[in-house]
């Protein structure tokens, strides 16, 4: 027998209570893991954004299309490395719920502007010879089990010349996003084909993506682009990618504050739950703990036993919850708000919080045990 046996025996003295407490903590940390994972994913979107890339949309509304002719004006500005346009729409693959996001663009230019989007050169070349070709992100390919050469029929809200809104594409290539594989989740098609085949909004695009030579000059470049179209019927709003990503997230709300508020409330409640469980557990064992002291266990040793018990309970439960969160987190990709592996930072933070929770909730009962007078405890006072 070791001291650990004593801790273990203390922990399982009331089996049902321990199991319920363990489950409560595990569920709280499952929630913590998932929410913090999503939070980290959103933060990743911003940190992955590049200041040397500008997004140009309509000043009126982000969904208001702009004339493709704006591209010429943008390209003529000095300091522009490369620019392209994107049309965007969503399509449904086979049945509702299987939504995919489609970008209609000049693929060669787009992949030049996004060097972290990796594609085999021959597959990119194939887009020039296949008008209905599509390059699909690897995450999406994996999710639907597609492979290069497959037909990709999509039902969309974009009406074609023939009156149908079924778009029949052919997968000619696949791309990955370096460092963020879960973000390789789009379908890229030829704008030329898209614009020719659609019935409405011809010659208009959703946005321009602009690569500039000097990221330090992103603000004046944005101002220069917007100045080009000032007082026209299609005024623009240009932002660098970071500011654009932040603006997009602000439309949803302050994700980080919301997540922290929820997690904070859950952990605060947990503090009382765990503290109460530990206090009750100690209260029931006062005579036993007094005996331990009587036979020679010092105040410090008995206090350590109680704290270890609290740490073990919180840590095992938290690790259980975080393990489930890590297993489930990749599934959040289907909701469009996560995906990939649960960041290691979230797990480390979770373990640190569990340890803090254990110490804070374990301290009051541990101090009670430390101050326990053997004579009074044995006399039931």
């Amino acid at each position, binding site marked *: 027998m070791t001291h650990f*046996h004593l801790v273990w025996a203390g922990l399982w003295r009331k089996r049902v209570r321990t199991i319920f407490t363990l489950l409560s903590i595990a569920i709280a940390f499952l929630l913590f893991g998932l929410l913090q994972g999503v939070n980290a994913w959103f933060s990743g979107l911003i940190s992955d954004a590049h200041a040397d890339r500008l997004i140009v949309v309509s000043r009126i509304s982000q969904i208001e299309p702009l004339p493709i002719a704006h591209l010429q004006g943008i390209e003529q500005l000095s300091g522009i490395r490369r620019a392209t346009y994107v049309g965007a729409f969503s399509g449904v693959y086979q049945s509702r719920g299987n939504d995919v996001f489609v970008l209609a663009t000049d693929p060669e230019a787009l992949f030049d502007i996004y060097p972290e989007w990796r594609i085999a050169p021959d597959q990119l070349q194939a887009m020039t010879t296949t008008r209905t070709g599509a390059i699909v992100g690897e995450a999406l390919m994996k999710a639907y089990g597609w492979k290069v050469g497959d037909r990709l029929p999509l039902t969309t809200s974009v009406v074609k010349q023939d009156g149908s809104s079924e778009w029949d594409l052919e997968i000619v290539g696949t791309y990955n996003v370096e460092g963020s594989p879960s973000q390789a989740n789009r379908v890229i098609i030829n704008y030329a084909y898209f614009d020719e085949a659609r019935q409405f909004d011809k010659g208009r695009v959703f946005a321009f993506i602009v690569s500039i030579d000097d990221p330090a000059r992103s603000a004046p470049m944005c101002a220069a682009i917007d100045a080009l179209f000032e007082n026209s019927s299609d005024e623009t709003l240009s932002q660098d990618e970071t500011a654009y990503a932040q603006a997009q997230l602000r439309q949803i709300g302050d994700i980080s504050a919301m997540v922290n508020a929820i997690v904070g409330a859950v952990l605060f409640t947990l503090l009382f739950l765990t503290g109460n469980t530990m206090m009750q557990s100690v209260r029931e064992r006062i005579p036993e703990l007094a005996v331990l002291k009587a036979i020679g266990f010092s105040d410090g040793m008995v206090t350590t036993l109680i704290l270890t018990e609290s740490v073990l309970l919180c840590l095992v439960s938290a690790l259980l919850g975080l393990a489930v969160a890590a297993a489930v987190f990749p599934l959040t990709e289907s909701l469009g708000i996560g995906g990939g592996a649960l960041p290691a930072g979230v797990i480390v933070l979770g373990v640190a919080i569990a340890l803090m929770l254990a110490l804070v909730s374990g301290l009051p009962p541990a101090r009670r045990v430390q101050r326990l007078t053997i004579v009074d405890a*044995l006399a039931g006072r």
Partner: protein
Amino acid sequence: MSPVVSLKNVARYYRRGAERVGVLRDLSLEIEQGEFVAVMGPSGSGKTTLLNLVAGIDRPDQGEIVVAGERISSYSSRQLARWRAGHIGFIFQFYNLMPLLTAEQNVELPLLLASLSKAQRATHVRTALQLVGLADRSSHRPAELSGGQQQRVAIARALVADPTLLVCDEPTGDLDRQMADQILGLLQIVNRDHGKTIVMVTHDPKAAERATRQLHLDKGQLIDAATLAAA
């Protein structure tokens, strides 16, 4: 030879509100090595307080206590804990075993504080359980044992670290006559055959008869046999 237990002018008071109540008053006592001393007296006479002081789980307000050659009345609580681990074996009225530990593990508890190997601990535990006749019940938990058997486990736990002194607080108080006789017989064996010094608090005159010396306490003071007879 110097006594194992020596109390000189010991007093212990408790506070009841603003009032100071004397539980032990100017008490002096010596117990020799190998004695089996029964402490008797009415409720509130100070028997358990005396036992607690001798066992080092309480401190006197006045006087000096020397047990096993150490002046424990001046020890800090940490020093007392270390001292108890080496010198005192406790036997309580309600056994006070750890419910989730087996008999063997309960007996092993005091050895966790000694620097012994696992094998040495196992040998000590086996010997102690054999001494109390419970070697075949070593893997049973307290709830699976009778009251008498639980008290035997408690005695094995008290003996396992080979303490200088056994202190017993009403060790048969929760047992029927037959079980009580068995436990008292066991204590006599421990005292007679193994030379253990025992101090036992009891209300039971039959239990006290098993001791080699009887002490009577009344109102916090020892009373001699003549006074007792006169009373």
